[in-house]
């Protein structure tokens, strides 16, 4: 299965800019470790993964009455800025959840990617 992992919020972690350079280095190393752990696990592959610009640089696009309206900022004001994402191929949810423990403990959303050719159930 393919999963989109959205790094939704800092959870109990300090915001990125509040970390010392040393702490930031430690967090970065965990992304490296996640990468390595995925490569080592059979049936798992990171298909894509990026860090995202902050909410101040996001643009929300809405089409209303046929008109495209642009708003500066993220889609839901209440939600913290989406920090990044991964697109990961994994055999099942448990394998992925196990690997995600390697990342810093961000709040995340894990959504399966729809496979249009999958069995009906």
């Amino acid at each position, binding site marked *: 299965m393919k*999963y989109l992992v959205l790094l939704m919020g800092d959870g109990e972690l300090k915001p990125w800019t509040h970390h010392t350079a040393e702490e930031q280095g430690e967090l970065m190393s965990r992304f490296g470790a996640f990468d390595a752990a995925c490569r080592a696990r059979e049936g798992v592959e990171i298909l894509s993964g990026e860090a995202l610009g902050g909410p101040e640089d996001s643009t929300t696009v809405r089409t209303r009455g046929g008109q495209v309206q642009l708003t500066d900022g993220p889609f839901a004001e209440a939600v913290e800025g989406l920090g990044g994402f991964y697109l990961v191929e994994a*055999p*099942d*949810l*448990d394998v992925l959840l*196990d690997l995600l423990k390697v990342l810093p403990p961000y709040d995340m959303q894990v959504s*399966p990617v729809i496979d249009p*050719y*999958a069995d009906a*159930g």
Partner: protein
Amino acid sequence: MDELDRVVREGWGRLLAQLLSQFRRLDLVEDALGDAVEAASRTWPTDGAPDNPAGWLMTAARRRVLDRLRTEEVARRKAPLLTIDAARQERGTSTMADPGSLVEDDLLRLVLMCTHPALAPEAASALALRLVLGVPTPDIARLFLVNESTMAARITRAKKRIVGAGIPFGVPDASVLPHRLDTVAHTAYLAFTAGYSPGSGPDLLRADLAGEAIRLTRTVLRLRPDEPVLVALLALMLLQHSRRDARVTHGRLVLLADQDRRRWHSEDIDEATRLLAYPALLEPITAQAAAYVLQARIAAEHALASTPDQTRWDRIVGLYDVLLGLATTPAARLARAVAVAEHRGPAAGLAALEGVEIPASHRPAAVRAELLARAGDLDAARAAYDQAIAACANDVERAHLQTRLDELGS
């Protein structure tokens, strides 16, 4: 119980797990097994039950799954654009297969899949009763006090989520398994307590259905003998279940102290006592297992007192103190306050009750009313009973509170 009922009751989960292990199609195998049971109900009464009833059902169900798969294959061939994906699908299937062909492992896989922590606990609980034990959906609905269509929808949603979210049919490695078994236990206990503490309506006790949660726990315990959380939970359930016939007379709730102890099921109490002596419980265990052990030991103190006067309230208060040290819950604080009142009098009980609140529950007010009445503060007791009656959603319990209020006079 006829032969078919017996085979379905004892073998449903194993058959379903074997089918899932072979075909990995939750959407197909449950229907196929249901169809096989239906076919058996038509043919066995006239032709007689086969020599190997479980094997007969397995063969019939397997044939139905294969029929369905063949139909799908035909449909797929008619859609040439999709053929590329057949190879992909086979690959996908092979990555899901895991080694280990023991049937017992398959049943454990089924249990762990139904009780996966990514499922809402109530949905997991219902699903485990349905898929592991084959309990009919109307019975599960009755247990959880929802209507049948709501329960059917809840179970369907949970099954879809298993497939959609990619919840595996597998056993995790040893570092994760104890936590998963904690969730299994929690799921079973949820079904058990649903049968004993109804929130509303006239039906006070659905003990038969609570008994299904005990059956679920026994089933998993057979797969994982000596697993502390399951041993402790089974003991706790048996002790509570042992009082099922004494809790209600003529539709009225009978409090523990007033129950006819001869009607308690001594075989359940004996089994629970043996379980609590298991050496596995002396090893380091999870917090959840420890909480079940303590609750079971408290229940055992009650069960082993031959009259209410002989209850060792001092020991019960001590056990509650340890339990509250593990996790402070309002329900445990309330129960401790009751024990304190029995041990050291109503004034001490009222002091222990200070600040205990359970949202939308009549119980704290009901206990306070009872203790105020015992302390002789009748005006305050009447006010607390009024408060409890207003908050109580269960017909039988409300009638009981009303009786107590009436006894105080005005």
